[in-house]
């Protein structure tokens, strides 16, 4: 990467003069110490970057980056991903009516179903995401609007949530649990996936809802208040978030350890997304066996319980099915980036080689002494 001329100057052995003065004087002499450090003669690497010296580095980078880029690109291409928008902006889209007749107060859920076809079978575990766009989960006030202590099961925070939660802190005189804007805007569509056989029967695909949150969040960060497994008394005296249809302790009544604050959908939602267009893991479709594909190619139906309004802010909702690799989801960018950078480095290496031959050769004889 860089030329390094090792510039180690040994200390001059002789301590000139000091000895001639005789012991007493020499001891008190203010003569500076003749050490490499104090005399600024520390052995030093001098990274002199010249065409000649950076040239190998450029070639090496090129040679390393291009294969990596190809590898990444191939990996990314091998990832299968399917995405379907069910916002319902179009008149023709099945969820159009649901989207346009939305009201937070309606008690009857609006249902719509979207048909789609998978051209290729999905191997291995398939991850099912919901995607939102133009949803600024990273808005400063939004990000702050939560109370981590409350979510960690702190009793006092449960009854007296942090001021950061305003204006979603108190509802009807009762503290909101979980308080704050993030919790209040919890994504509450329900997605169900059905495979349509060749003979037309709908087979529900089993969606696993556990294991979608980070282990640390699930087991360390989020805790239900009270030692009791029964959550109803624990959340006594608290109000549900304004937009929620049901209180937090009824998020998943079927599974006690997926209920309340430790509900994984809730946890996933609480990890605010970095960018306004994002996806969040919704369910996992486990691989059944090594022989059959998890999602064979064919027709599918996505049944949606349309609860979540996004049209008001020009947002969109998507359902994504994806397999993942060691490098995460499908993203050709990194592979391209690596290939590009590698190629540029390689080309620059060639350019430098030319420059080096043109200018550098003569200099070797008349090096400025170090």
């Amino acid at each position, binding site marked *: 990467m860089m030329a390094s001329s090792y510039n180690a100057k040994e200390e001059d052995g002789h301590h000139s003069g000091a000895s001639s*003065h005789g012991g007493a*004087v020499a001891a008190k002499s203010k003569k500076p110490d003749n050490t490499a450090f104090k*005399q600024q003669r520390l052995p*030093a690497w001098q990274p002199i970057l010249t065409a000649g010296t950076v040239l190998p580095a450029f070639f090496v980078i090129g040679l390393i980056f291009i294969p990596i880029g190809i590898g990444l690109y191939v990996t990314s291409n091998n990832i299968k991903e399917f995405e379907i928008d069910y916002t319902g902006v179009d008149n023709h889209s099945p969820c159009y009516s649901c989207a346009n007749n939305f009201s937070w107060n309606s008690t009857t859920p609006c249902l719509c179903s979207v048909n789609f076809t998978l051209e290729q079978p999905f191997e291995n575990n398939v991850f099912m995401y919901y995607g939102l766009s133009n949803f600024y989960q990273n*808005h400063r006030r939004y990000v702050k609007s939560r109370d981590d202590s409350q979510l960690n099961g702190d009793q006092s925070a449960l009854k007296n949530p942090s001021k950061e939660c305003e*204006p979603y802190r108190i509802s009807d005189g009762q503290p909101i649990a979980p308080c704050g804007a993030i919790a209040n805007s919890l994504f509450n569509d329900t997605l169900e996936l059905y495979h349509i056989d060749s003979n037309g029967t709908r087979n529900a695909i089993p969606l696993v809802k556990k294991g979608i949150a980070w282990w640390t969040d699930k087991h360390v960060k989020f805790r239900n208040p009270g030692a009791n497994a029964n959550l109803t008394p624990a959340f006594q005296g608290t109000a549900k978030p304004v937009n929620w249809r049901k209180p937090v302790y009824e998020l998943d009544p079927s599974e006690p350890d997926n209920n309340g604050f430790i509900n994984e959908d809730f946890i996933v939602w609480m990890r605010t*997304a970095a960018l*306004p267009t994002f996806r969040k893991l919704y369910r996992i479709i486990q691989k059944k066996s090594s022989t059959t594909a998890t999602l064979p190619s064919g027709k599918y139906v996505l049944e949606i319980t349309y609860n979540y309004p996004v049209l008001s802010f020009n947002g969109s909702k998507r359902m994504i099915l994806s397999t993942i690799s060691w490098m995460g989801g499908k993203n050709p960018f990194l592979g391209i980036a690596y290939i590009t950078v590698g190629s540029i480095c390689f080309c620059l290496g060639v350019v430098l080689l030319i420059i080096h031959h043109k200018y550098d050769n003569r200099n070797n004889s008349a090096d*400025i002494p170090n």
Partner: protein
Amino acid sequence: MERLHWVQHRCRSLLAGDSGRGWYSAPDGLPSKSSPDAHCSPHRVSGKRRTVSAQHGPHQHEHEAVSKSYKGNAIRTTKYRLLTFIPMNLFEQFHRAANLYFLFLALLNWVPVVEAFQKEITMIPLLVVLTVIAIKDALEDYRRYLFDKKVNNNVARVFCGKQKAYIDQCWKDVRVGDFVRLSCNEIIPADMLLLYSSDPRGVCYIETANLDGETNLKQRQVVPDLPLQGAEFTPETFHSRIECENPNNDLSRFRGYMEHSSGVRVGLHNSNLLLRSCTIRNTETVVGIVVYAGHETKAMMNNSGPRYKRSQLEKRLNTDVLWCVVLLIVMCLISAVGHGLWLKNLKDPIFVVDGETAPALAGFYVFWTMIIVLQVLIPISLYVSIEIVKLGQIYFIHNDLALYNEQLDSRIQCRALNITEDLGQIQYLFSDKTGTLTENKMVFRRCSIYGVEYPHEENARRLEVYEAEKDKAAGRSVTLKSGCSGKSLSCRSLSCNRSSVSLHTLTAESEDEEDQLSNPSNQPRTSAFSSRMAKEVVPDPELLRKLNWLCSPMLPLNEGSSGSPSSRELTYITDFFLALAICNSVVVSSPSQPRHVVPEARTPLKSLEEIKLMFQRFSFSPFSALSTLSPPQIKGSPRSFTSRLFTRGKAGSFTFSPSPSSTTADTGSDPGQESSLETSTLRPKLDSSAGGEGGNAGQMEDADAEDDSKDIQTNPDGSRQDVDVDSESDCDDDLLYEAESPDEAALVHAARAYRCTLRGRSAEGLLVDLPGIGSLAVQLLHILPFDSNRKRMSVVVRHPLTGQVVVYTKGADSVIMDLAETPKGAEQAQDIYNHIREQTQKHLDSYAREGLRTLCIAKKVLEEEEYEVWLKRQLVAESSIENREELLLESAQRLETNLTLLGTTGIVDRLQEEVPETIEALQRAGIKVWVLTGDKQETAINIAYACKLLRPNDQLLTANCGSKDACAALLEELKLEVQRGADSVTELAAAETHGESSPAGSVESFVLVIDGQTLDWALQEELKSDFLDLSRRCKAVICCRSTPLQKSQVVRLIRDQLGVMTLAVGDGANDVSMIQMADVGIGISGQEGMQAVMSSDFAISRFKHLSKLLLVHGHWCYSRLANMVLYFIYKNVMYVNLLFWYQFFCGFSGSVMTNSWVLIFFNLLFTSVPPLIYGVLDRDTPAHTLMEFPELYQAAQTSKVYVPYMFWITVLDAFYQSLVCFFVPYFALAGSDVGVLSFGSPINASALLIILLHQVLESHTLTWIHILVLVLSGAFYFGFVLVFSVLCVSCSPPTNPLGVETLQMSQPLFYIICTVTVVTALLPRVLFRALHSTLRRSAALRLAQMDKADAEQYHKRMQRWNLSHSRVHRVPVCADNPSLEPSSASVVS
């Protein structure tokens, strides 16, 4: 010469206008016209004067009433007290703008609508800065406190009224009006009036080294006319009242009067005042009454804090910081507008918390939020970092072996801590000559007396030998000297804790300076200005032969023998050497009686009637005797001359100095009465002693008069001396002269070489050995001290042989030659005299060409009546309180007229070692060197030749003119000439470009020499620009005969008008104003005290150190600091932009993708140390390369590391890097399920790596320290975030760091992203560096090759020049610098 008695004129120049005029209303009813001035000085309290009376006396009540308002002697230099430290310190600190910025941010964060981070977090930078500075302040203050305590608890013996005795008291308990008794080597606790001294003459010596660094002794006088001039002073009987000025800081002035109970008033002067923190020397006991105590003492009032200069780089930095502010505001505005627009387009979003806020208002809030978020963009911590870096740089400069002077055991002193990088930007260097370019070790070289030149060939040879042996002798001479003064050393080492106590004036100094002062025994410089070389003058044989006529029995009574000098010439010679020996203020001491020789006047040992007669005959008076006598009469019949003298009644005034008994008896008496002492009382005595010694006359024949003088101690009057005889003869060579200026010392030593030895000095008389005569007591009537206006000093003595009142004057040739007037009267006498003058002038000119310092010696014989008249006015002048100085000056000028020129001396001041090399290096480095000197034009030019400031092929432009118009015309003419020269050069260059490339060095350059008077005109408003224009085109400018004020004016003119960086270097008090005026002031701690050092930014001991200091340290410091500043700005811009880019993806809401702790610590901890190391340790070019190629200094200046466009390039690079660093992760993670912090994690990590690796690229050297710090910084970051992400469950509420980093770092994606980001971000910088250094290196190579060719060409040209010029004008060359022959001038290699 111009530096004799510099204290007065230095203070005058420093405090010009402030305290120069008196405010004091004269007690004797003189009209007080100074009352309007009363409010000019800041030191006065409503123009009141201070009344002091004894604490224990009849005025006790009055004393209590009056002195209540006077400060006690306790001092407190601490800024804070224990209890008030925190509020006071905070108050102090919030005076700094940077801290106010932090405070503003912290407060801003408390406003809920704009709050960006947790409230505590924005407090952290403020707290860190405040704490660091508070700790620093507290430590400094504690050190001061300890020091104060030590000083305050020093013990002094103070008179106690109750016990009627002197008891030990702490310094802090000393009050105004107390009587303090001090012994030898004790330190004066407060400013006191000297009331009693154990010295019989009522004098006391003090050493002011602690005050001004001068090691020579100053004499102080007991207040005259004390009513009780008893054996021992009794405070009980002191009933006088003292009225004096209110406290002020003028060290050289003290005015007041003492009113005795009888109503008599006695004037008090500076010579009666003992200043705090000086040391009593050579006086057993003194008693004084305290007039100023504690903080009101002059020493304390002079104690100003350390210097603060703002460096050029800092000024430019400020503009860049302003640009950063602009950038910040722009970014915040973009955010604000963006947020407003974004909000406007949103309809009922469920994620907006306070949706009802109007977009405009929200945008306004966001603006402030963004200011908090992007606060790092303003590199406030840069200021703290710069201070730390400069401390580190100072540390290395201070420790440089090359700047250490082995002989003096002194390092460089860095007194200004914040202008290190200015050393690398110097464009103009103003140098003093004497003591700066030269050693300021004056050595008598040759002289001319009676118009006859004595070349002193042997002496010249001796000097050459010294030149050759100098290196070897360096170490030895130290031991020699200390050997000589061994006893005085031991005496001085008795001075127990003198330095520790009296250092108070120096508290602002670095510790090393304190060390230096606390080890006085370490310093070999006990006897000032008396190096071995100066002492051993080899007499000129011719002159010696003539002088020996004095001792020979065969006096030149008849004018027969051819070789014998005329008696008139002998008179001249004798008077000349007498003047050399006595016309000075040298203090004599010998090891046996260290600095304590009270000369006992001894009668002449060989008072043969014949000799007396001869000296009678020698004495001449241009006004009376000579004018009436024709030369043949003088030469032919001396006896008749003598007889005429006697018959004319001159014998009435013929008197020898008073005998010892009378001297002591008359101590303190009015000198005016002295003159009335009639010879009738003395004469019998003299005759008897003369008769008693008659038997010894035979020994006179011995040529060696010194031996005689020792043997002949049998006279009855000298019996008291017998005890001393042995010791005195043993250490005869060990007489130590302590002179105020090296010139004086050189002259005294020279006189001594001719056995005209100054043996001792007292206030009333001098003891001089004369060859052939032996010891003579010379009655000293007056000393008219040197001042820079008169440029001369005089002594008025009663001539020991003729008994006449004689004025001996020694001064600058120009002045003396003007004052030496042709005697009226006989034409032949006039002829002779005119001849002498002409010859002397010729010799003077030739001396000056040789680069010798010339001094003229003249004398004047005063008629008794004339003297009486003058004396009266002098006494009036001395005793006047108002405008005393003016009256004294006037009085002196009245006396110093119609002088008779005796001769002139040439003193060699050798160049310091490596001065030509240094100057050459500096010039090659593109620094214009100006020499500003008070010397003669010829001397200055010669020195300029000697130190290669002037090259043989340079064209000399001299500007001497008498009027303004002439000056204007001359400047025009010179400008034209320079223009012509430049034109021809360009033509030449144009012609040469066809053939070979014209090397820059071949240009014939101009050197302007301008004298003081012309400079005066040139500096005036109308001619300023012409002068500037002219001097700009000259390679060098030499200003001779310039005053200190002119020096500073020149520096100011150049600095302000050309806007260049100036450096002034000097060693004496006359350079102080120049040193203070320049951007960088360098003091040379040489022979002339510490005045220049005290006012300087850096103090070095040799001129040659400048080259390393500027070329290496200056270069390094500048490039280091400039690079560090750029790096710092880069770092901040780069990091802050990451946050800015994120705003585009979070609706400009001021959100960040990083945990706020990490955000704050990123700048404060993770990336703060590497730039510091970089700024302290980086070496862009090795030291020896910089020394070998001074051109690199200029290259660094012109290539400008730190210039506006570099700032913008840096900012652009930072923008690029931040773009890469943000958008590579962005594209890699866009659309995925990445969380806010997970998104920030690779960005932060790669930003850190980029920033650290960027530094590696930018560093020119990497030592293990760099590596260690870089690795630690990286490790610290990753350690911190990992620990944070493991442990932080619900801390740091707005963000959610738990598990983020652990998860991220366990995924390969993280590393993939980081790698490509780092590589891409650094790619352009690497490429740029590689291409730049490749192409530049070849350019440098070409330059080097060109240099080589240039040098050869130069050499050839030199040879041609020598051939052509050798017949026209041989450049005179310093004889002691044979290596400087122009023909052998070494050539640029």
